[in-house]
């Protein structure tokens, strides 16, 4: 990665020096060494503080919305960031010529808490290989399965490489199939148990709106979730269901599966299970790619004359 980081800095410096972009968005050092934070390099020298490692967790696409107001933006993009950018482009929230995308392939981001639990001490560095992750601690260097180290969102990733890069650093990794098996497990529950499962999840919801604020698909200028006629401010269970139903439905067919909502949720609500349910049914009923590729007509913005009637074939173990 360090070679790619050096090339990234070089490109960012050039873009800023030549005035192609006003700001370059990437990652910079965070308060804790294994938690880099989004960083905005506004001058060529700041480009040297850009870093790129296995701990860069936050999605960057959403920042573009605000940053392009002042001029063209450069940014580093993994597969998930790339899909987020495609979402914003398809929604006409930004224009392609306002962006300079430096693509990198990503094999997964290490969750420092999870890795620390696996390694038993603070993790200083990591290498993500094929099926294993090597964690480097002050005392040892050991390998663990991906599921013991990576962020949840990365375990189901289907797009390691962005499709819209202006320049790609390193090798492209071909896209795969999104694994939606975790949806099946919920579908198999009896309906009362399923209701209790979701009620328990939603009861924890603080309504902090982090899921919406980090989401590249939740880019509307004004949101029905802020309007009391659509969503009352009370936090009773009924309103929590309304909130989560509305959030998930409004990104149905538009969600790019970047997983940021779930990563951001402080209450550990498995928001991916909601988004992926729509994704699975869109795939099974209407043959929509999972996730739907932004740019084509949205799956809920069109129809086929011979669409199936999905309500006859719920096929769930109720």
């Amino acid at each position: 990665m360090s070679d790619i980081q050096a090339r990234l800095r070089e490109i960012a410096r050039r873009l800023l020096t030549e005035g192609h972009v006003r700001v370059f968005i990437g990652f910079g050092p965070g308060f804790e060494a294994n938690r880099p934070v989004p960083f905005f390099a506004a001058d060529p020298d700041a480009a040297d503080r850009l870093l790129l490692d296995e701990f860069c967790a936050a999605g960057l696409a959403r920042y573009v919305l605000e940053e392009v107001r002042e001029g063209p933006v450069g940014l580093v993009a993994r597969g998930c960031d790339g899909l987020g950018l495609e979402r914003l482009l398809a929604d006409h929230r930004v224009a392609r010529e306002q962006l300079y995308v430096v693509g990198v392939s990503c094999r997964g981001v290490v969750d420092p808490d999870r890795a620390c639990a696996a390694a038993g001490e603070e993790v200083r560095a990591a290498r993500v290989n094929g099926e294993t992750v090597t964690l480097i601690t002050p005392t040892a260097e050991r390998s663990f399965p991906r599921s013991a180290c990576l962020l949840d969102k990365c375990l189901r990733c289907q797009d390691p490489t962005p499709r819209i890069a202006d320049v790609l650093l390193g090798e492209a990794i071909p896209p795969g199939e999104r694994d939606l098996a975790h949806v099946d497990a919920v579908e198999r529950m009896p309906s009362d148990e399923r209701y209790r499962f979701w009620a328990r999840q939603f009861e924890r919801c603080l309504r902090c709106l982090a899921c919406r604020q980090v989401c590249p698909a939740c880019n509307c200028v004004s949101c029905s979730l802020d309007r009391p006629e659509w969503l009352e401010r009370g936090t009773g269970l009924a309103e929590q269901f309304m909130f989560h139903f509305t959030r998930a439905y409004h990104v149905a067919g538009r969600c790019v599966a970047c997983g940021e909502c779930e990563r951001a949720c402080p209450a550990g609500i498995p928001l991916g299970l909601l988004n992926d349910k729509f994704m699975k049914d869109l795939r099974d009923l209407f043959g929509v790619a999972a996730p739907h590729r932004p740019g084509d007509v949205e799956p809920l913005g069109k129809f086929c004359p011979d669409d199936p009637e999905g309500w006859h074939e719920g096929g769930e173990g109720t």
Partner: protein
Amino acid sequence: MSSDWQPRIVGFACRWCTYAGADLAGTSRLEYPATVRLVRVPCSGRVNPSFVLRAFQRGADGVLVAGCHPGDCHYTSGNLFTRRRFSLVKRFLEYLGLEPERLRVEWISAAEGQRFAQVIREMTDDLCRLGPNRKMREEP
């Protein structure tokens, strides 16, 4: 639950077909339980899925979304969007734990008074078996 309990069904009915079909059921003196309150909408495509959830929130035991048969939409294609949308929404509400019988989507034309009455009879039977809905419902 007392034996004379009757479910409350909120029916969103397209004015061009189902609403007229319900009228026909009435003028034909067809018998069906008085369990449904119809909300007339210009097209089944007007039914925002939030309406359905709101109805359950505020005390509906069942919800019917009904419009013109595919191909017969007064606005050409409104019900074709409905078909896609409610294919997903119905499955999603079941995924959240709602019993499948509580939400029905039906195509009922202005001539199908019989069909309307039959759907309400079936729904009422199903809901009587299930009892009052408590899921996603707000505290009274």
